[in-house]
């Protein structure tokens, strides 16, 4: 976006979905202009042609043939069906990040954006991304509803507290683009703006390396996993987390859910909401103790546990390759079917009273 450019009538087009949106828009614009000209033209023409010529004029009866009535309904509906299917198809694309998309975690709060690259860099109000690579944003809010909007990419999605929402884009042009908060969120709603900086891949790599080093999210998550006592249960009396991400989990009421980001967050915040079959409701809620950023870090850590861990050694940490950024897709992709490992010893029965000694 060029600050000194002449007056714009149309926004810059900087992502793959942008031109697709624009084509659909121009189709609908053309239809609209045609209909407006048709109606306005008919009105102007008839108001002139049939203007009242004398005070006592009595116009004749004209019938309203049913065929015309039905065409009033069928023709517009036919055109609208085209709009519906085309728009629906585009929307489905907009909502399904392509496999292999690079994930960025986003936290909106009054009145700023916190963006977290899994390799480590954390940004405020600015998002650096490489051109030509799909980027998936997993977002939540710390307080009220916000909306992460980049008009030049033609995409936005509400950022809702208590849950994760996802949007994606693939930038096609380098440059700097507006980032707006597009859901009214209080006093400084209009100041909750920033930039999306799209760079060539080499420049992006250089930027990643060159920023003040933050540890990768998965490493922060590993530390949290230890310090909050998660390692004491998980892998022994609690389900193992190795290979958990995007696997199918059987719950105590018979449902089978996929362990995506939303499930992982919910299990930390409200563990009793979805109990894994065979385990009791003894995990405490960490809602009051963890910020959304820390939850993102823990999820990145869990994602990095691609392999099983040695459950015969209590308190063991998973062995295996170095933590790596997640490349698991979010939707529209067959999740792998690694089952949960069985617990090392029998869990307490459902009706037993008295909590575990490690419970807070």
């Amino acid at each position, binding site marked *: 976006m060029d600050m000194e450019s002449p007056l714009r009538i149309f926004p810059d087009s900087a992502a793959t979905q942008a031109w697709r949106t624009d084509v659909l828009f121009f189709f609908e614009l053309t239809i609209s202009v045609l209909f407006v000209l048709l109606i306005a033209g008919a009105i102007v023409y008839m108001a002139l042609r049939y203007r009242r010529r004398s005070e006592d004029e009595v116009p004749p009866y004209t019938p309203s043939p049913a065929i015309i009535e039905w065409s009033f309904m069928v023709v517009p509906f036919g055109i609208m069906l085209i709009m519906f299917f085309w728009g629906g198809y585009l929307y489905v694309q907009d909502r399904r990040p392509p496999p292999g998309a690079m994930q960025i975690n986003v936290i909106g709060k009054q009145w700023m954006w916190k963006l977290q690259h899994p390799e480590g860099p954390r940004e405020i109000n600015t998002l650096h991304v490489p051109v030509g690579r799909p980027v998936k944003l997993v977002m939540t809010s710390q307080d009220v509803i916000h909306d992460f909007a980049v008009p030049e990419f033609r995409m936005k999605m509400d950022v809702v507290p208590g849950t994760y929402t996802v949007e994606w884009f693939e930038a096609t042009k380098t440059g700097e683009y507006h980032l707006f908060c597009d859901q009214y969120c209080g006093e400084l709603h209009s100041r909750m703006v920033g930039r999306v900086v799209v760079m060539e891949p080499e420049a992006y790599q250089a930027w990643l390396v060159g920023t003040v080093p933050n540890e990768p999210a998965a490493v922060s998550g590993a530390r949290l996993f230890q310090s909050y006592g998660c390692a004491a249960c998980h892998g022994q009396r609690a389900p193992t987390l190795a290979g958990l991400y995007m696997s199918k989990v059987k719950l105590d009421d018979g449902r089978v859910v996929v362990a995506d980001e939303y499930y992982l967050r919910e299990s930390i915040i409200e563990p*009793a909401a979805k109990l894994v079959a065979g385990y009791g409701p003894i995990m405490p809620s960490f809602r009051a103790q963890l910020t959304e950023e820390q939850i993102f870090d823990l999820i990145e850590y869990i994602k990095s546990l691609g392999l099983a861990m040695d459950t015969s050694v209590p308190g063991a940490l998973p062995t295996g390759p170095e933590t790596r950024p997640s490349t698991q897709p979010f939707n529209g992709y067959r999740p792998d079917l690694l089952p949960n490992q069985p617990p090392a010893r029998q869990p307490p029965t459902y009706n037993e*009273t008295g*909590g575990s000694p490690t419970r807070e």
Partner: protein
Amino acid sequence: MTEHIATEHAHSLVQHQFEDAYQQKEAATLGMWAFLATEVLFFGGLFVAYTIYRHQYPDPFRQGALNLKWYLGGINTAVLLLSSFTMAMAVHAAAIGSNAKIIRYLVLTIIVGGAFLGIKATEYYIEYREHLIPGLNFAHDPPSEEEVGPFVGAFEKVQGWFDRVVPPRQKEEKRSDTEEMFFLFYFIMTAIHATHMIVGIGIMLVLIWMAKHEMFSAQWHNPVENFGLYWHFVDIVWVFLFPTLYLLRQP
């Protein structure tokens, strides 16, 4: 303002905008049905919100239901159905033009409706002692036997007898925030229902006053009939409230 003092002639009871008593009766009845439609949507919003949350949090909502005294709710259901019966008798009395019988049955309805409200108030008191009122004293730790006192304890014991009929409930360790939401819905829905009943009792007092002044006749008794519709509606709302709030106790 036309004074509707009853006379032998029905047409003097007809308000000026109507052609005849028949049109007036039709209009009044349709008006009451339209009003009840708005009430369905009013309560409906609450039922929908409750249902969505119950689907999302089945266990905490079940725990909440376990904390309610379903036998008290059951007795209340019977009481309210009885009041609908006495109300129907009042409407019949109006149809045959007997003001004395109208008074008798309306008084009975008020007494029975009052009994419902009394039992409800008792339930509210029990919930107050058990620290179940959101925004007021909802406690995540259930109070002990000594804290609730003998009165509430007695009800707990009776509940225990009834619970042998249905599967036993587990006394929960700690109450979650979503259980507080269950109680929020419980109190809001039953309170709005109780408010409708109190308003109904107020209207019945007015109807009793009118019947005392011999204002109803076989030709004109629209207020009694239409109020009957209202009272039956309030009853039906309870018939939905009771199972929704009290009876969904199974895991």
